[in-house]
């Protein structure tokens, strides 16, 4: 029961902060509310007992990626005058909501029709670092290796795009 309540509180937090994210004018505000979202999601992971993902979510997402975003915002020194004018933001949000609505409604109704509806979550403690590690290295070794190459590619890409060229000639 407590779990249910906690779930609803966290969901509310997630959704509200997400809404703030997409409607905030300044990117720094959006980033800060994004942190709330991410931490709430991490809490949701913790609620389900997956301790490793909880930690990962906090460290990588809330820590690394968001720090990167904030760093970029600072680094580029985006002033308010650099921000785009968005006079029709409210209208845009309304229309896009209308555009997305069919998708959302149909998908939710499908979810509620499927046999998964009444599966309860055990809320056991599971997904420790050891279990996950053994799954990664037994079943998902290929994916793990591929991820390393993916990161390498993005690293090369980011460096070659963002660097000031002195040697390119």
């Amino acid at each position: 029961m407590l779990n249910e309540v906690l779930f609803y509180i966290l969901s509310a937090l997630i959704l509200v902060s997400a809404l703030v994210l997409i409607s905030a004018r300044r990117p720094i505000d959006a980033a800060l509310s994004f942190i709330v979202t991410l931490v709430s999601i991490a809490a949701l992971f913790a609620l389900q007992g997956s301790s490793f993902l909880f930690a990962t979510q906090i460290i990588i997402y809330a820590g690394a990626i968001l720090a990167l975003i904030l760093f970029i915002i600072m680094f580029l020194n985006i002033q308010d005058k650099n921000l785009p004018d968005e006079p029709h933001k409210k209208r845009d949000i309304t229309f896009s909501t209308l555009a997305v609505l069919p998708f959302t409604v149909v998908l939710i109704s499908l979810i509620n029709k499927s046999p998964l509806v009444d599966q309860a979550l055990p809320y056991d403690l599971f997904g420790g670092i050891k279990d996950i590690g053994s799954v990664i290295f037994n079943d998902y070794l290929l994916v793990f290796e591929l991820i390393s190459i993916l990161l390498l590619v993005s690293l090369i890409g980011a460096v070659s795009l963002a660097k000031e060229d002195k040697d390119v000639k």
Partner: protein
Amino acid sequence: MLSNYLTLSVILFSIGIIGVLSRKNIIVIYMSIELLLNAVNISLVAISNTLQSNEGQVIVLMIIAIAAAEAALFMALFVVLFRNKRSLDADIFNLLGEKNAS
């Protein structure tokens, strides 16, 4: 119940889509895309929990890594775009559209 988690995912996903569609600021658009990935993650962990298998969590881990990879490129994108035009307005980058084609 699992369906609650899935529903939450879908709603969060929709919010992300709305963010992508309605905002002009590229950084906000980027964060909306991250929101999409997080929406998927929520459900995956829940499913993994119901099935009592760790596969779902591994997938989440991989998605986080993918997000990181995309993040790196997006950061580079911000730098490149801001250096070129001193702005991060998605709508001013329409040099290539049909409007200017001829």
